[in-house]
């Protein structure tokens, strides 16, 4: 009985980057499931037989017994259902009882295809195993404000679940694995590839990667006051070498583009520092920023949830505080 983890590379263009942080988290989580071995399957990076060394290094560190790869060239461009076929084949090949992936948009999508094809349940965004006999887990619902307890049973053939991002911190396995690499072969059908990315439109700064990858995020909420009031926020983000993130209300009001949104319906971030300015801290937003290592809030309301949940706070108007900080830094 083994656990199969769907892993993704950190950066398709940088072979040295290894596995994504979320993938490493899920490998760590996988060891809390009742499987004897942890296997992994790498998709999205066609590599017949020879995955990048950095990926293998992460796998060994996480005690991965076996890494499934595929050489299918048609998988270079994303096609969830086709990816799911590879994952399914790897589960079959490795005799997996449990299949897990990170609760990213992509991880959830691929797993859902596997679960749908197999006709088994799929709890999403699991955060912890709360009982082992029989196995029960808790998962995030209502934007992470509520935890739902559900059973996770392998009796149906395969137990499928996604793991919420940043629910666990990646830890090396007690003893490193050897990580044998094996190739899975699948016969892709036209239906598997019917919904496939045909092209990627990489406009400058128009995507979420700047935000999700930043070490420092300067967040801005309704307290900014208007679309033309972001100068100081942008200046501070630039000064700290970080990105701007905003609350849902800011994108709803049309002040900023959606790809800057942090929250349940935006990006989930885990920077070293999140500096939340004029953000009250509604659940929807907290769902996206709660994994930040340190949170500093600037808010006029000392009782705003963002302030009480923060590590540090300044009570005051952000448009007074930020310029003063910039001046102090110059």
């Amino acid at each position: 009985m083994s656990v199969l983890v769907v892993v993704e590379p950190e950066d398709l263009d940088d072979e040295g980057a290894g596995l994504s942080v979320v993938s490493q988290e899920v490998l760590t989580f996988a060891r809390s499931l009742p499987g004897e071995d942890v296997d992994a399957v790498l998709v999205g990076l066609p590599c017949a037989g020879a995955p990048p060394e950095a990926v293998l290094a992460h796998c060994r560190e996480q005690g991965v017994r076996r890494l499934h790869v595929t050489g299918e060239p048609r998988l270079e461009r994303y096609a969830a259902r086709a990816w799911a076929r590879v994952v399914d084949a790897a589960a079959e090949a490795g005799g997996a009882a449990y299949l897990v992936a990170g609760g990213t948009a992509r991880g959830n999508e691929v797993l859902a295809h596997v679960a749908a094809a197999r006709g088994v349940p799929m709890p999403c965004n699991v955060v912890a195993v709360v009982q082992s006999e029989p196995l029960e887990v808790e998962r995030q619902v209502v934007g992470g404000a509520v935890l739902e307890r559900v059973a996770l049973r392998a009796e149906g053939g395969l137990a499928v679940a996604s793991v919420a991002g940043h629910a666990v911190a990646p830890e090396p396995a007690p003893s490193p694995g050897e990580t044998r690499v094996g190739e899975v072969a699948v016969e892709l059908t036209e239906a598997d590839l019917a919904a496939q990315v045909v092209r990627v439109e990489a406009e400058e700064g128009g995507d979420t990667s700047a935000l999700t990858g930043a070490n420092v995020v300067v967040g801005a909420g309704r307290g900014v006051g208007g679309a033309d009031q972001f100068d100081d926020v942008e200046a501070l983000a630039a000064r700290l070498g970080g990105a701007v993130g905003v609350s849902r209300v800011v994108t709803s009001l049309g002040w900023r583009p959606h790809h800057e949104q942090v929250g349940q319906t935006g990006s989930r971030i885990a920077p070293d520092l999140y500096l939340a300015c004029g953000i009250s801290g509604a659940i929807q937003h907290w769902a996206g920023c709660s994994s930040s290592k340190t949170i500093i809030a600037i808010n006029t309301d000392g009782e705003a949830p963002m302030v009480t949940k923060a590590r540090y706070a300044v009570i005051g108007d952000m448009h007074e505080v930020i310029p003063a900080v910039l001046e102090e830094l110059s």
Partner: protein
Amino acid sequence: MTDVLVCVKRVPDTSGEVVLSADGSGVDGRYAGWTMSSHEECAVEMAVTIAGDTGGSVTVLTLGDDDSVEQLRAALAVGADEAVRIDAAADDYGPADVAAAIAEVVRAREGEGRPFDLVLVGNDAADTGDHQVGIRLAHLLERPVVAGAQNAAVAVSGDRLEVRSSVSGPTEVFDVPLPAVLTVWEGGVEPRYPNISGRMRAKKARVEVLEPSGAPQGSGRLGLRVLPPPASDVEVLGEGKAAAPRLVDVLRELGVVR
């Protein structure tokens, strides 16, 4: 002429602090009220735009009790033409059950010779966050599905759909044949507010009520708990601009500035 089915769910509004119902089995919506998930608001907007562009129609569907008619009417008010309610207790339905119930409606309409060219669902409901109904539905209907769709336009030929998504990084473009399923993600379209004529229309519109066939398997929910708010250990650095030096000290301590 693209005929669109858009599926919505009545969920508690979670703009504020979440409160569980007395028996702990669900979320209490009496303070913040009930709404449809924000992904679904965008799905409705997308449906109305596509139908408008192609001269097609929009049918809005929900699975829920009588109260969920409110969400159907909200969609009717912004331009949906017809409404269908599958009369069931939504909490008893797991994602696979919901997908099956929707598939049944889609097949029935196909049988009547009025098939849906496109089925839109929200990527995940704001309450249960299952991330799978649309995909399960696509498997049941044997149709292609794009998840995280933020924009969609029907090609001139009328038989293909160009879909955009930037939820996983740079904008990815899909080109899928119709009929298809999309799970819609907020951010690509701006949901409109209803106007008064729309509200009046919605009020008078008939809502078709369907009985589900067969019992649901359930969501497997064993219990809910609200995460206790973490004990605040906030250190207030000061008030107003006078706090700037202290704040900069902290930034230095954290190593984000040198």
